[in-house]
């Protein structure tokens, strides 16, 4: 840390330095590095999808082409083949990464926003608020998760925003439980009592005194949960409850090609590899981060 004399010297180092330091930490765990690598790969694919995808993902070009077949009616090669409607699978996987990452991130973030707020309130106030929120969470969590999704989607219909809503509804209680148990532990620390002893209000204590100290386990959990949400989005697509066609989404691709899976395995295997590698990346990163956090 540089020791420059400055009026604002009491402040912690700027955000950029802290992020760089985090990345430096990753170097200590090869597992986390591989995980982060997989995630960065898919993020790059999603961002540069328009440049990377060789074909329009929604145009019917040449049905049932095996991987490596050249495009008969034009230039280019179907490196990963085409599906039953003749759409290029590579392009659909590349564009599909956008859908998965976008909805995966938005749904996880939304579940976190709700779950953290509930967990902070339940853990900090305790009493009837805690009782109410915890019981509510117990009820939602007593549903087998997919049963809950199926019921919700059957009720409100399949769309992107509904998937985000369903994921938030089903995952927020689990996040609340984690946050609540962390808060219950932290709120007994003396520094929380010290904050009360200078007349801080509840919001300040929850957001400034408690929340920063639970972020470690929460980052690990967020990685795991985003992997889980990715799987959920895939499963819903696979079950035909996901995003409406024709825009590419990995789960939906598998669903559409399911009946032809035995004759044309490439149609199903490749999207499965895509989704598994993304989830693996998130899980490895979570595991590595947990290991690093346990070292100190």
């Amino acid at each position, binding site marked *: *840390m540089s*020791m420059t004399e400055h*009026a604002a*010297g*009491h*402040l*912690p180092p700027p955000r950029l330095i802290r992020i760089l330091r985090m990345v430096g930490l990753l170097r200590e765990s090869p597992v986390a590095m591989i995980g982060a690598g997989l995630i960065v790969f898919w993020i790059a694919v999603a961002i540069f999808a328009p440049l990377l995808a060789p074909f329009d993902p929604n145009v019917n070009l040449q049905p049932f082409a095996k991987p490596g077949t050249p495009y008969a009616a034009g230039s280019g090669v179907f490196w990963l083949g085409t599906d039953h409607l003749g759409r290029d699978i590579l392009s659909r996987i590349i564009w599909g990464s956008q859908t998965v990452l976008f909805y995966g991130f938005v749904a996880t973030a939304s579940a976190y926003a709700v779950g953290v707020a509930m967990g902070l309130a339940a853990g900090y106030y305790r009493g009837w608020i805690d009782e109410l929120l915890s019981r509510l969470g117990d009820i939602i969590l007593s549903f087998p998760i997919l049963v809950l999704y199926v019921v919700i989607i059957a009720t409100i219909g399949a769309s992107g925003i509904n998937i985000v809503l369903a994921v938030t509804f089903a995952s927020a209680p689990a996040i609340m439980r984690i946050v609540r148990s962390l808060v219950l532990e932290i709120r007994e*620390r*003396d*520094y929380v*009592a*010290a*904050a*009360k*002893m*200078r*007349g*801080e209000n509840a919001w300040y204590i929850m957001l400034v*005194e408690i929340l*920063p*100290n639970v972020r470690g386990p929460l980052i690990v959990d967020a990685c795991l949960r985003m992997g889980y949400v990715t799987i959920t989005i895939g499963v819903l697509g696979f079950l035909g409850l996901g995003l409406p066609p024709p825009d590419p989404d990995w789960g939906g691709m598998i669903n559409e090609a399911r009946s032809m899976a035995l004759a044309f395995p490439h149609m199903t295997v490749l999207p499965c590899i895509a989704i598994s590698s993304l989830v693996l990346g998130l899980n490895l990163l979570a595991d590595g981060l947990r290991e690093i956090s346990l*070292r100190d």
Partner: protein
Amino acid sequence: MTDMTMPAATRPVLELQNLRISYFTRSGEINVVPGLDLKLYPGEAIGLVGESGCGKSTIGYAIMRYLGQAGRIMDGRVLFEGRDLYALGDNELRTLRGNRMAMVYQDPMSSLNPTMTIGEQLMEVPVYHFNATRSEARERALAMLEEVNLPDPASIMERYPHQLSGGQQQRVVIAMALMAEPALLIMDEPTTGLDVTVEAAVLDLIAELRRKHKTSIVFISHNLGTVVRICDRIGVLYAGELVEEGPIKEVFDDPRHPYTRGLLCCVPTLDADKYSSPLTPIRGSVAVPRQRPPGCVFAARCEHRQDGTCTTAKVAMQYAPASLRHVARCARQDELPPLRRAAGDDDSGSAGEIRHEDVVLRIESLKKYYEQSGGLGLVTGNKVEVKAIDGIDLKARRGETLAIVGESGCGKSTLAKVLTGLEDVTGGRITLDEVDLTDLGIDRRPDDVIRRLQMVFQNPDSTLNPSHTIGYTLERPLRQFANLQGEKLHRTVRALLKAVNLPAEFARRKPRQLSGGQKQRVAIARALAGSPEVIIADEPVSALDVSVQASIINLLAELQSERQTTLLFISHDLSVVRYLADRVAVMYLGKIMELGRVANVFAPPYHPYTEALLSAIPVPDPNVKTRRILLEGKPPSVLDRPAGCPFAARCHRKVGPICDEQEPPERRFGNGHRIACHLPPADLNKMESVVMQAAAAE
């Protein structure tokens, strides 16, 4: 303790030869013990003392050959009954452990298997070491439990560890260690974490068993007083090195290493107070073994250091003049000035004169009851009332230090929480000057009232928010209470740091970059930020090493007298209380048993509980004898509080049934000295002092 001189020809039970131990972490090798030589003869007990991080537990586990994956013996040998332990095969080692050599651990609760009955755990020893049948093993276990003075051994056998109290658990662990009559017993802080009266009973038991079984003991402790009670010899460790070693009496009468002297001078004794003999803390903090200096390890903290003599070459052990057994590792040991230890100053009480009756904080028949749900705290469940504080009256005067002393569970910490408004009041009244605090929980107190009554917490590791810098921690109350901004704010932060003897750069640091003592200084600075009238300090030094403890105590005393703040000092440590306080309240099970000036409370007449507490303190001076008072049983829980005197069930001076049935009357002895006891004042006045110098005792 009788000094058992061993014939020189006897073979030692344990011999450590140039033992060198390192831990391997991700950042490389840490040499914890650089080379240790030690001999222990049959029947001998040696105490290894030192502060945290000095390697004493590591040595204990190295003797058991149980260093874990990270620890390794780099050099030297451990000879047990002449055999090199580190050359043994796994099976040979197994037949020694628990049989010829055994260990007693620091935390008895976690050392016992929670899902096995006590009996099963004890019986394993004879079953696996002597092929005993179950009934033989059972008999042996019962006999051992009897021997460690556990009531009703048969029923203890059937119980699980969590069903016993801490003291009982430790007796079980001791029984387990002695099951096979080992030749060597390693005891790693066996009484740390126990209440002082329980500790005294366990120490007595160890001393008794030692006489009976003639077991050799390595007694590891940070508390010099406990070592004096048990051992014949003492070894003082600093940063993994033995800096002084010899017979207890010789070492205490003539400590020849400055670190030993430092340890002796930084703990308050029962006859010292802040006016007569200030504590001398050891400066700095325990050295990190990674940075081992070329010369004396203690040089960096030593006030007698002489560059060259002490800092260039390794210092060898040297015998004290006219002694064959007392050695010290100090190059200047013959040049050290004579040691001034805090001597009993009979008129010390007069120094603590309180000049006026200006009461700041008034507590009247205060009650705090908790509703505790029986069972698992599910939706329904029977509620039990816990009377944590059951009607206490106290007045704290401006500028005085009022200590509240008692064992765990006596309600002293609850009192702090109730006064600060962190917990609600059940009954009674609290007033701060003219403000009635009774119904003002912390959320409802106006900022100015909060400012006037501040708190210093016990645990240095949780007192500061690890996410915030020290600067932020100190700025925040200044903004809240004094509305300071900009340069003025930073100036005040620097001034606060200076007041607690910390450099201004610390404002930029995070708590994890600070040592325990430094964190506690910041916590004190934070409490001072709003210039409070009353500071409540809940065990502020109990988690600190003794050498650091002294400097924090001195800091509190200094700041308090400078600023004329009222200090409510809550502690379990009578010696610290004796040193720091002007007045003392002794609490037991939510009630005040005795209250008065410090000199009056620590001298007869005593409340029988105070008498027992005082007698239980392990005094770090072999020349001071205490009259031993054994307390029966364990403290009754706050759940089934007796109708009469709460102490009646354990009292050694019980008058009769009246003690169980009626609340004790308050006996007054002048100077504000009050004792709540059924004993007539005449009997109370006849009591003798618990502490006596050896000369008087003989």
